[in-house]
Each structure stands twice: as structure tokens, then as C-alpha cells.
């Protein structure tokens, strides 16, 4: 082979790759790694199969259809011990999602508040917020959870429950019991109207934005939107005669029944998760706000924007761009940390999965199902956040 130096072309790259052996070497490396991993996997799987057959443990997912036989204290959908393992898993998944969703909302609100408070010009407030962040970030979450749970259990038992709001709210060491209006058809219709109204609000906001972009004139969004969202529903509710019958909590024997109930474990878990994650979100928010250059707020004010507009139109969009990705990580952490509920006995996915493994002995299937669910949650949250992140990213720049 000749190198075509005379024509001025680059020396044949493929030729050098083969001579230096890099391509072949890379293929060899990859084959070796694949072989090693394959070998280890084969060894482990064959061991596992041997073990399973010698201990006569069943394999496969047949157990999902069988009767679970254990009670679950808090369930969003119908569940009884006679329900199947599959349904128990579903209850667990829903509990995990419920705790995560509520925790994420609370943690965001609290985290933003504390993050802003750390930047306050008020020395005391800034120090308090700083102390909060340090205290919570440097203590293991599971320890905090058992501490909060211990404190909650020191509340009086149901018989001596703390009563407030004229008996509409009972606080005991079993949780929170409160009066709840019984559901009626009118409520459903009113809720549908509210949902439609919110859609209308969104449409209105889009229209206003387009109008501003095309004509430079604004259009009021907040108050008309609020009216659009809630007035029709409220009107229907009032026209129907405002039907409300309260179901009130009552003491029966050693327990409180009737009305709505939030269990101690649920409350402690949500409280613990959101206060803990809020400390991390606070740091993210603080860093995001600090990272927006001073010149930006000065420029906005120089353009004649008011403080509110400067914050909303100039500062926040830039800070958000820095805040969103790390906050997503914190949301994911919160969802994963909800598995610590095992430590205080709230029955979510991991707890129910653990019970299932103990009862059926099918450890592999049990653990795999837990992992699959968390992976799905993680991927969903990060996809959603990536989408949002792209939506608020600077137009015209590649990230």
C-alpha cells in the first residue's frame, strides 16, 4: 500500500488504524469485557437456579395472582387481606406516589422560602434559615424520621385526643382525624366545571402572551383567569343550594372513626421527607439566585420595569434555568427516600415488597419489581423535567 502523499490527501486513516492496531484492540477489549460480564452472569444465574431448585423455591410471577393475606393500614384503592399480591403491590406503588407527590410540593414551597430567607437582608432570618439547612443536611434522614415518629407517638392516645374546631379536628398519636363533607353528585359537577375553567385560564394566558408578542399590548390574566376557573363551579354549587353534610370523627371504643383520617406514619413520613429535602432545595435556590449577575437586575430597573416585573420577567427566568436541573435531582431523591418509610412502618412499595418476599420466599422477583417501579418513577420524573428544562432554556442556544 502506498501513502498518497503526492496528491496532498490525508494519509489513509484506516490504514494507520489497522497498523497501530487501535481498532482491533478496541474490539478485543470490548469482547473481553463482554465475555467477563457474560461469564460472571452465567455463573451467578446457574448458581441461583441450582439454589432455587435445591431449596424448592418457586420461580416466576405466579404469586402475583395469589391471596396476599396481610393487612395494609392505608390504601387509596380498595384493599383487603383477601386481595392478591398484585393488588398489594399496586397499593404500595400508589402510596409511594402519594407520599412523593405531596412531599415534592411541600418541599418545594418550604425549600424556596428557606432559600430566599437565607439571602434575606435580615440577619436573624438569614441565620435561622442557615441553621435549619445545616441541621437537617447533616443528620441521616432515617434518624430524623424515627425521631419525629417518637415525638408524634408521645401525643395523647385517641381516647384523650386533642380536640379543636368544635370537634371537627382530632389530634391523637394515631394521626389526624377531621370532618369531611360527604361526596355528592353536585360536587362532582362543580369540580368538572373548575377543571374546565382552569383549561380556559390556560387558554387565556396563551392568548395574552401571543397578543403581547404581536401587538405589544398586555391583557389581564390573573383576575379574569381566577374568575374563569372558579366562578362557574362556585355558582353551580350555590344554585344547587350548597349541599354539605359533614361526616364528623367520633370516638368508638379505643379508636376514632368517621370523617377523613391521615395516619401518624403518613404524616410523619411526609413531614420528615419534605423538611429534609427542603434543606437541599433551599441551597439550590440560593445558589441559583446568587448566580444571576447583579447587572441583570440593575438593567431591568434601568429599563423602567418595576421590582415585581424585574423579578418575574428578568431574574426568575434566569435563576430557574440554574435551579431546575439540581432540583429535579432532589425530587428524585425524595421519591427514592420515601422507601425509608420501612423504618417507621408506613406501608409503601418497599415495605409491601419486603412482606411479600418474606411470605413467598421469592426474593428475586420481589426485589426486581421494587427496582423496576423506582426506575420507572425516576425515568418519568427526569424525562418530564428535561422537557420542562428545554421549554425554559434560552431560545436559540444549544445546551
Amino acid at each position: 500500500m502506498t501513502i498518497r502523499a503526492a496528491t496532498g490527501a490525508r494519509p489513509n486513516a484506516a490504514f494507520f488504524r489497522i497498523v497501530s492496531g487501535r481498532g482491533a484492540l478496541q474490539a478485543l477489549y470490548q469482547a473481553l469485557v463482554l465475555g467477563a460480564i457474560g461469564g460472571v452472569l452465567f455463573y451467578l444465574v446457574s448458581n441461583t437456579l441450582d439454589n432455587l431448585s435445591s431449596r424448592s423455591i418457586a420461580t416466576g410471577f405466579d404469586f402475583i395472582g395469589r391471596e396476599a393475606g396481610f393487612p395494609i393500614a392505608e390504601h387509596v384503592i380498595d384493599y383487603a387481606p383477601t386481595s392478591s399480591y398484585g393488588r398489594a403491590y399496586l397499593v404500595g406503588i400508589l402510596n409511594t406516589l402519594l407520599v412523593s407527590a405531596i412531599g415534592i410540593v411541600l418541599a418545594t414551597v418550604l425549600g424556596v422560602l428557606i432559600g430566599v430567607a437565607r439571602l434575606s437582608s435580615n440577619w436573624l432570618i438569614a441565620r435561622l434559615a442557615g441553621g435549619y439547612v445545616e441541621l437537617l443536611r447533616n443528620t441521616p434522614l432515617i434518624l430524623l424520621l424515627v425521631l419525629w415518629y417518637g415525638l408524634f407517638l408521645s401525643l395523647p392516645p385517641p381516647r384523650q385526643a386533642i380536640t379543636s374546631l368544635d370537634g371537627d379536628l382530632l389530634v391523637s398519636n394515631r394521626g389526624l382525624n377531621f370532618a369531611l363533607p360527604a361526596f355528592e353528585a353536585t360536587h362532582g359537577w362543580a369540580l368538572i366545571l373548575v377543571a374546565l375553567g382552569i383549561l380556559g385560564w390556560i387558554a387565556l394566558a396563551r392568548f395574552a402572551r401571543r397578543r403581547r408578542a404581536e401587538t405589544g399590548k398586555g391583557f389581564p390574566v390573573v383576575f379574569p383567569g381566577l374568575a374563569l376557573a372558579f366562578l362557574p363551579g362556585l355558582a353551580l354549587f350555590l344554585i344547587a343550594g350548597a349541599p354539605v353534610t359533614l361526616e364528623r370523627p367520633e370516638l368508638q371504643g379505643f379508636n376514632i372513626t368517621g370523617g377523613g383520617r391521615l395516619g401518624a406514619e403518613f404524616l410523619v413520613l411526609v413531614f420528615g421527607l419534605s423538611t429534609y429535602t427542603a434543606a437541599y432545595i433551599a441551597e439550590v435556590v440560593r445558589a441559583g439566585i446568587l448566580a444571576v449577575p447583579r447587572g441583570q437586575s440593575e438593567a431591568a430597573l434601568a429599563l423602567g420595569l418595576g421590582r415585581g416585573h424585574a423579578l418575574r420577567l428578568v431574574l426568575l427566568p434566569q435563576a430557574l434555568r440554574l435551579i431546575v436541573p439540581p432540583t429535579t435531582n432532589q425530587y428524585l431523591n425524595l421519591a427514592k427516600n420515601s422507601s425509608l418509610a420501612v423504618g417507621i412502618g408506613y406501608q409503601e412499595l418497599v415495605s409491601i415488597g419486603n412482606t411479600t418476599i418474606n411470605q413467598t420466599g421469592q426474593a428475586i422477583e420481589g426485589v426486581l419489581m421494587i427496582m423496576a417501579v423506582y426506575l420507572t418513577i425516576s425515568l418519568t420524573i427526569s424525562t418530564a423535567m428535561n422537557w420542562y428544562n428545554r421549554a425554559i432554556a434560552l431560545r436559540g442556544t444549544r445546551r
Partner: protein
Amino acid sequence: MTAAHVRLPPRTRRGVLHWLRRNLFNTWYNALLTVGALYLIVVALKAIIGWALVDAVWTGSNEECRAAIGDGACWSVIGVKLRFILFGTYPFEEQWRPMLAVALFVAMAVISSWRVLWSRTLVLGWVFLLVVLGFLMRGGVLGLMSVPTEQWGGLPVTIMLAAIGVTLSLPLAFLLALGRRSTMPLIRALSIGYIEVVRGVPLISVLFMSSVMFPLFLPEGITIDKLLRAQVGIILFSAAYLAEVVRGGLQAVPAGQYEAADALGLGFWRKTRLVVMPQAVRHVIPPMVNSFIATFKDTSLVVVIGLYDLLHAARTATNEPTWRAFTTEAYIFVALIFFICCFAMSRYSRRLEAAPGNKGERAAS
């Protein structure tokens, strides 16, 4: 120069009153916030000090403690149960060994925090120390009584899980980070898959895997003790997170450095070892300390698979009927130990970040 040209320095305003006005009462809403916060602080401190200090029983007997339930804390539970909380079920006469191990470990950690001493020798020193500590705890050599790992507990277990977890996950993390940036598609895919899957699941599920699934993986007759299995779980878990930290450092190394190393004719491994890694690691030492804090806190999760770490030891120590009412005090004591360790580490990491020579781009995390 005539007197007319001499301008007096601006009047410095100082004094407590001025400070208060500027930092606490500069606007009406800040004044309101200050007063509100002060009120809350006073109320909270009054309750906390009353419970934890004034009405607390410090050295009293169990009876005195029970009499104080509802008013004050019972710190004497810590005094009575201290050795169990710290060392778990380790044989009583032999507890000087875990005590010595913890002391050696802390001494080594303090020495390592001194930047001047960072060197390859120090890394080797750590590996050597961990091995020595292992023998010290395990016994069976040099006339030390053999203590099986089932009897280990408390602080040494917590420290061991974290320290060995981080030490052994580092090499794995380096490999994964390099793999994720590799040009070989298979290696890259495997690395990404591993990192994302592990980061996508909670540590508890990995620990469950190590405790219930792992025994099934091994050939019959071979068992690996529970502590070691949990340790493996923690190593594998922490490696995925550390790999992302290391990757951040690799990205912070300017492309010119890679090219310069190529131009010098260095091969991949020598390029990585001599040129890239030293720079990458310098960038990521602060986030690595943070990662260590996270691992240290995470070790408390082994309580759910029944290992005797600090938290579990505290729970067990107060499990007898007479002391059951004072679990909270034991938990607070353990929380304090964790807090002191983690707070010291996070302060240290912040100081490193602010130190000169680390002012370059900060690693993305």
C-alpha cells in the same frame, strides 16, 4: 498640602445600635420579621432548654428518670447504655479494641485533612490502616480473641461501612467514569446502564438485594456474612454516585491537556494516570467529600436489614422495659454524633472549595 485638601475619612458608623438598625430593623417588614422570629426563638428555646437542660435527669437512676417523664429528658440513659450504643454486642472486656480502632481512624482522618500531607503514601497509609483496623476488630491474630462480625456493632460498624464503602468504591467509580466517556460503544453503554440503574433505585432496595438475593447467587455451601454483603451493596451503590462526580472532574479538564498528552505519545492508561486524573481529582475533591458525607449518612439504613450500626444499637439499647420510655434521648445522642461528624466534613469541604488553587471551574454535579 493645605488643610483644605485634607478630607476627613467618612464617619464610620458603628456600635450595637447601628448594627441592629442595619441588619434587623432596616425596613418595617424586616422589623416585623425580626420581632416574630425572636418570639418564636424564645418560645422554642424555653421549651427545649427546659426539657433538655433544666428539668433533665443527668446521672439519676431509672426511677428518677421515670418521675421526670413529661418534664425533662433522661440523659442518664446515655451514661448507662453508652458502651452498648457505641460498640453494640462486642464482648465487653474486649471493647478497648473498637475504641482504639475508632480513635486510630479519627486520628488518621484528622491527619488527612491537612493538605500538605496529600500524597500517594497517604492513600497507601489509608489502605494499610483499614486492613490493620480490620484485624484489630476481627481478632484471631497476635493473641487477640476472635470476634465474629455478628457481634460487631455501633460506631465502628458505621465508620467501617462508610470508610471502606468510599475507599473501595473509588477505583470502581474511576473505571465507570472513564467507561462513560469511552469511545467504545459497548463499554460506554454498560457504564451508562450501570450508573443510571443504580442511581435510579433507592439504597434500601440494593441492601435488600444484598441481604436476600445475594445468598442465592453463590454456590451452595458458601455463605458470606451479612455485614460483608451489606458492605458490598454500599460499595456498588456509592460507586455509581462517585462515578458521576469523577466524570464532572474529567469534563473540567481542558481538551488541550488530552491533546498535549496524545502529542507526547502517551498511551490511554498513561495519559489518564499521569495527565488527566490528577487534574480531574483536584477539581472534584470538595464534591467527593460531600459524597462521603452522603455515604456516611446512608450507612444508617443498614438498620432495615438488621445490622447493628449506631442507630440500631441505640434502638436495641433502650429496648428493655425500664428504659423504653427514653429511646428519644438515645436517638438524639446518635443524631448528635452524626451531626458533629457530617458538619465537620461539610465545613471542611467548603474550606477546600474556597482554598486557593481550587478557583478553576467548579465540577458540575
